[in-house]
């Protein structure tokens, strides 16, 4: 099946008359892409997924799949596949019958009347189970499977109907860390192999970064940032995005000057340069400076100034994490956390009370409208 696009146009969902769960959201999902709706609970990500599934009627706006509006198409005719958080396997059916259920009902929903022979049926189910690595589990009951196996069956059942869109509703939430990482890779592999447009809902930013083609970061029903994982991580559009996707230091300041591709920002007791092609900034604007902890290096206070931005500070604490130290530094511009890899030369002698420079490159910083 040819991958299809999904488009949300000004989708709004109001609950109980005044609670806007989804607020004028417009997104375009390219065919074959895995797009993650990322956000904290209450951000509207699940509501959007449920609206695409047809479990929830939207208050206004349009949802298009392959260019056709689907708001008035009942769920069972939308040709979807879904993996729910609890997997929703039918407990009274074997794994084989769970898959078969989907094949027969979806064929009927598409008004396909050509008979499907038992041999073909078994082949389809068998090859799908093989794809998710559950060869020979057809006769098991869901209760006899582990969490990871249930998840694979749910994925197989979702895909065996050859849907146009795959919906993943926090499918890894109930799994332990190790299994979760393994299945993330596997779901991604299967998704790319099948080439199906996928909507993935999660509140786990790590999951979002490692699996997605695009990430939509949601907050209070609005899209704060829609972009590739590296765009969202390296150039977050807002301080909320920076804080939610990975950890970040947020420093508040004021624009002190703008000159070709470089913005000078005045912080409390320091001035820094930021590479930015952002237009519309003028001197005096309140602005947030976003710096990732791993972009910061720490230098001894005695070292002479280099080309990088530097702020003087005092080490508050230093926490050991095996591969790195998290060093908290009190500066005049605020408290800053830096990740110092153990391999790096500067990690020695980071004792609380020590006076140090924190340094970061102008291109390692993102700007967001100040608060």
């Amino acid at each position, binding site marked *: 099946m040819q991958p299809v696009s999904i488009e949300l146009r000004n989708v709004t969902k109001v609950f109980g008359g005044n609670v806007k769960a989804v607020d004028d959201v417009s997104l375009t999902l390219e065919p074959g892409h895995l797009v993650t709706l990322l956000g904290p609970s209450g951000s509207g990500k699940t509501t959007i997924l449920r609206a695409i599934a047809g*479990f929830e009627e939207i208050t206004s706006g349009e949802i298009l799949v392959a260019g056709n509006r689907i708001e008035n198409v009942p769920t*069972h005719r939308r*040709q979807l596949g*879904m993996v*729910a958080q609890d997997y929703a396997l039918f407990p009274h059916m074997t794994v084989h019958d769970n898959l078969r259920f989907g094949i027969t009902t*979806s064929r*009927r929903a*598409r008004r396909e009347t050509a008979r499907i022979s038992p041999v073909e049926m078994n082949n389809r189910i068998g090859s799908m189970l093989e794809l998710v690595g559950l060869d020979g589990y057809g006769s098991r009951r869901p209760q006899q499977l582990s969490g990871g196996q249930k998840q694979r069956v749910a994925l197989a059942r979702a895909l065996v109907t050859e849907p146009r869109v795959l919906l993943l509703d926090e499918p890894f939430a109930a799994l332990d860390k190790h299994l979760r990482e393994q299945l993330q890779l596997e779901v991604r592999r299967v998704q790319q192999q099948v080439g199906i447009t996928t909507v993935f809902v999660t509140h786990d930013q790590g999951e979002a970064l490692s699996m997605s083609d695009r990430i939509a970061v949601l907050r209070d029903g609005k899209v704060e940032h829609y972009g590739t994982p590296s765009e969202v991580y390296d150039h977050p559009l807002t301080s909320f995005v920076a804080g939610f996707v990975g950890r970040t230091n947020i420093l508040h300041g004021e624009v002190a000057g703008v000159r070709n591709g470089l913005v000078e920002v005045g912080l409390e007791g320091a001035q820094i340069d930021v590479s930015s092609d952002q237009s519309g900034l003028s001197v005096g604007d309140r602005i947030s400076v976003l710096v990732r902890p791993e972009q910061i290096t720490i230098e001894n206070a005695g070292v002479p100034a280099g080309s990088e931005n530097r702020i003087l500070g005092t080490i508050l604490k230093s926490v050991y994490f095996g591969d790195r130290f998290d060093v908290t530094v009190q500066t005049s511009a605020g408290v800053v956390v830096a990740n110092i890899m153990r391999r790096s030369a500067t990690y020695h002698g980071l004792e609380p009370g020590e006076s140090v420079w924190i340094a970061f490159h102008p291109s390692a910083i993102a700007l967001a409208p100040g608060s």
Partner: protein
Amino acid sequence: MTAPRRPWWAFLRTRRVPTVVIGLAPAVILLTGMFLLPLIQLVTMSFADDYRNPTTVFTLENYVEIFTRAYHLESLVGSLAVSTTSMAAAAVVGYPVAYYLVHSTSKYKSLILLATISPLLTSIVVRGIGWLILLGENGVANQVMLTVGIIDEPVRLLYNFGAVIVGEVNILLPFMVLSIMTSLGQIPRSLTDNAAVLGATASQRFLRITLPLSAPGLVSGAVLVFILAMGSYVTPKMLGGGMVKVVTMDIYSRMLVDFNWPLGAALAVITMLLTLSILLILSRVQARLIGNVRL
């Protein structure tokens, strides 16, 4: 110096008597004394030959009598008919009510639940009288139908099989509804949602997901209704008016009118076996439907 004397109840404190034994003791004693021993006596009595001296020789006479006399067979068949019909009617009437009560978000939900279980709050006799007033020759139902013009003269609504079923279902419906509700409430919404995603229509979702998964509640409700209907006496008597013969009346007459206790005991034993076999059949049906499923 001698060791202090252990009190007689010291064994209760030793760890050798598991707490579960102590905990179960009252129930075991009560059930053995009040249920198991009388049951054994009942079965023994059903094989006695002389009803004036109900512990004599072993004989099958009473059972032969029951299976050769049309009267007894009629009462057994009557009971089975009343019970199975009540069971089926309660299931058909109760399922939609239970489904509504589980899934509705209406504010009248609790009111409807209260109305459903209200028959349990009054005595069977009072409810029987209520139905007599409603269904009598000059009762409310006939008056209404006459006024509206559906009928020209009063019809006979009482003292027939239908009246007994109406009365039984009225009394036993709460058991059915509550038991189906328990099962329905345990089916996760995500199952039917996912079935819809897979292309299942509303009726497919109901027939292939909801109904089979609510079978445990349906079956336990059916078992309760069947057992209670098999043992009912007042309702068939009041609303059947002698036109509907049931085995409880037969047992009552044999034991308290004829004083033929062995025959009454044999009837009771057969009733018990019939009930047990229905129970077995129903649990088989459930296993066939969904296997051994825990939600």
